[in-house]
């Protein structure tokens, strides 16, 4: 015991320095995982919140229920739609804008860097308010432009398919900035000598891009793809603030399904089970990505 205390005393300072952060992470990240596993096997709801005696262990029932829940199926289908369309657009557009901005060194290029990054620092509610106005069927800018061109206005947030695409457009607009910065950082890291060598060999611009720049960006492309993928599987804030998942669940995502079951219907057990399904999907997709990247490297 004495030894333990003297040891503790010896390392007093590092422990004191990490203590606040570690305690907070434990309370709000680590412990919640175990709590979440626990309640996903119970019927915890608003009654259980008031009194823990009202909570019953129900085994796998929540998970079985999820398998049968048509709303959950729809949320999964919508999430796949978001990921399959949104992720390639984010990667392609952020890479393209990084390449274009990296083209010159004049002031105007750093100005564009700020412009393209601006949506990324904007609050999601403000974004929803502004885009809600732009998308408005009667008074929105977009339909006014279409009308001006002699075309019929669109039902941006009411049509089942178009509503999903409208949310993707907004999310892509917001996501370009941060990924563009990652690509720009990587572009700055490519040794100049590679380009000089290519120039001496008489390589065309396109060839330089194809055989030097893009291969050198391999790791950052992987990084951007995987973080974007993980982020979009959790697609949440956009449908939440823009459409609340409507019309009729057509823009609902898995993450929003979990939130609504948890906080709107107070079905905490059911929502926790849903969150684990989401977690498992994320882990599987991440592992597949790493696998594919490894195979790529071996070729």
């Amino acid at each position, binding site marked *: 015991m004495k030894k333990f205390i003297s040891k503790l005393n010896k390392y007093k300072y590092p422990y004191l320095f990490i203590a606040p952060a570690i305690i907070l992470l434990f309370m709000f990240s680590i412990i919640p995982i175990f709590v979440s596993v626990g309640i996903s096997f119970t019927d915890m709801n608003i009654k259980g919140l008031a009194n823990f005696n009202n909570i019953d262990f129900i085994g796998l029932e929540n998970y079985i229920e999820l398998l049968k829940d048509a709303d959950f199926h729809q949320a999964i289908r919508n999430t796949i739609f978001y990921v399959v369309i949104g992720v390639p657009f984010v990667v392609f557009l952020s890479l393209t804008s990084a390449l274009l901005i990296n083209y010159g060194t004049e002031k105007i290029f750093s100005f564009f860097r700020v412009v393209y*990054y601006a*949506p990324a*620092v904007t609050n*999601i509610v403000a974004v929803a*308010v502004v885009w809600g106005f732009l998308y408005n069927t009667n*008074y929105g800018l977009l339909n006014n432009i279409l009308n001006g061109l002699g075309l019929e206005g669109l039902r941006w947030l009411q049509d089942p398919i178009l509503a999903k695409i409208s949310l993707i457009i907004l999310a892509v607009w917001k996501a370009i900035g941060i990924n563009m910065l990652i690509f720009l950082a990587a572009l700055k890291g490519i040794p100049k000598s590679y380009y000089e060598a290519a120039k001496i060999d008489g390589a065309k611009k396109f060839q330089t891009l194809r055989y030097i720049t893009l291969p050198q960006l391999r790791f950052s492309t992987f990084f951007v793809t995987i973080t974007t993928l993980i982020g979009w599987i959790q697609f949440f804030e956009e449908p939440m603030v823009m459409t609340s998942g409507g019309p009729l669940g057509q823009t609902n995502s898995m993450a929003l399904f979990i939130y609504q079951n948890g906080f709107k219907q107070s079905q*905490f057990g059911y929502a926790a089970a849903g969150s*684990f399904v989401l*977690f498992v999907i994320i882990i599987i997709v991440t592992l597949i990505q790493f696998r594919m990247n490894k195979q790529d490297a071996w070729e």
Partner: protein
Amino acid sequence: MHGNKTMITEVRKMKKDKMKIDKIIVIILLTIGGILMLTPFIWMIFSSFKHANEAMLVPPTLFPKVPTLENYIKLFEELNFLVYLKNTLIVVAIFFIGLLFNAMAGYAFGKFKFPGKKFLFYMVLATMMIPSQVTMIPVYLILNKMGLINTMLGIVLPGLVGAFNIFLFKQFMGGVPNELMEAARIDGAGEYYIFFKLIIPISKPILAVQGILTFIAGWNNFLWPLIIANDEKFYTLSVGLSLLKGQNVTNFALQMAGASIMVVPIMIIFCIFQKHIMEGFVTSGIK
């Protein structure tokens, strides 16, 4: 001979011209993209100075015909935006305490040896992979058990520290030479003195980046204020704005003014400090 030389300069000039044309095309492409990126912001700001009726004109006007501040006045005088603003600033201020916690942890992980260090650090990193949806419900239950629902503390606690920030601080502070600290210790400086008077001043570059990002994160924080604050007196700007959107569905000019209050301050701060953020990205080693 002479003709050959002029031909060479001619070819050089053509090459230069071609480069110029390339650059012009690039700038045109960037301009088109830039307009698309900025249109929502421009539309927001111009509309916020219109009368409620003018914002709903078909076809719309770009510049307000009779610019007015009535929307902004209404937000602060009739609605509770002053309270929301105050709460948002409190959240931001508390987030800076979180920043200090992150820096302290990063320093200890970067510069000290202690039992359990490796395990704890991996644990910190592992928290980055946990999706927020998984922890959302249990965190709510934990806060409820602690009696922190509908309190300012409950709003800020879940997002106060972040693994990625700790990681970045560790990377930076790990590079501070040991001799510096040893010298201070020999001179009889205490550990707190060393951290606050030596390490913090040296870490200015990373603190600048983290400080701006902390400000943005605190200002934009939405989910936890929404879940935890039931009482309007605890609403932050983002929650207040979503309330405004729900209650004034067709008053777009008012909505745009509310959105401008959220967006413009952050844009100004971002424009002033953007160089630090961009450079921070390059130096933080994300490649």
